[in-house]
C-alpha cells in the first residue's frame, strides 16, 4: 500500500514569493492534516480536513496561508508572500477517522531567504 506522498521535497524562496505544496494521502483515508515543523521543534498543526471539509484551521495564518482539499482526496497548501519565519518542514498526514493513528509523508522542506 502506498504511503502519504508529498511534493516538492524541497523549495528555496526569496521573501515575498509564493509556493504550493501538494499531498496525496493513503487511499481511503478520510482525514488529512497539514503540520508545520520548524527546525528543532515538534510538529504543529496548521489545518485538518475530514473529506473536503475543514475541521480545524485555527492555527493557519489566514492572511498568507491557505489549504484546500476539493474532492476529499489530494490537498494543496499554499503560502503567499513567504517570510523567513516560514522556514520549516511541512508535513502532511492522513488517518482513518475511526482509527487514530496518523501516517505521515516525508515532508516538504521550505527555506525562505
Amino acid at each position, binding site marked *: 500500500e502506498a504511503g502519504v506522498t508529498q511534493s516538492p521535497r524541497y523549495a528555496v524562496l526569496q521573501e515575498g514569493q509564493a509556493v504550493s505544496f501538494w499531498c496525496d494521502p493513503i487511499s481511503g483515508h478520510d482525514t488529512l492534516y497539514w503540520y508545520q515543523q520548524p527546525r528543532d521543534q515538534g*510538529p504543529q498543526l496548521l489545518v485538518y480536513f475530514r473529506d473536503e471539509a475543514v*475541521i480545524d484551521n485555527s492555527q493557519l495564518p489566514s492572511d498568507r496561508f491557505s489549504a484546500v482539499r476539493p474532492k476529499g482526496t489530494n490537498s494543496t497548501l499554499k503560502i503567499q508572500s513567504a517570510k523567513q519565519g516560514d522556514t520549516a518542514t511541512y508535513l502532511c498526514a492522513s488517518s482513518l477517522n475511526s482509527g*487514530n*493513528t496518523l501516517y*505521515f509523508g516525508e515532508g516538504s522542506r521550505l527555506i525562505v531567504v
Partner: protein
Amino acid sequence: GDSVTQTEGLVTVTEGLPVKLNCTYQTTYLTIAFFWYVQYLNEAPQVLLKSSTDNKRTEHQGFHATLHKSSSSFHLQKSSAQLSDSALYYCALSDLTGGNNKLTFGQGTVLSVIP
C-alpha cells in the same frame, strides 16, 4: 487546550544500557490517546507506540510505555538500547473528543546511542 512536555532535548546512552525518555502532559479533554512517534533522519515520523488505557503497559520493537493518568505521564523506556535506536522521538496526545482526531506533539527528544 492541551500540551505535551518532553523535558530532554538530547539523551545520550551507551549501547546495551537502559534508556528512558520522559513525557508529561496537560489536558482538559476527556477522550484521549497517547502516542510515541519516531523520526529517523530524512524520513517521515512513524508511530512506535500508542495507548489510551490507564496503567496498561504497551510494547513494540523492544520499547514500552505505560499511561499513568494519575501523574499525567507516558514515558518511553527500553531495557537495552541499540545503535539503530538513534533517532528523534516525539510524544503526542490525541484529542478524540466529539469525533476529533488531532495530535499535539511535544518538542521531541533526540536519542543518541553510542558504542
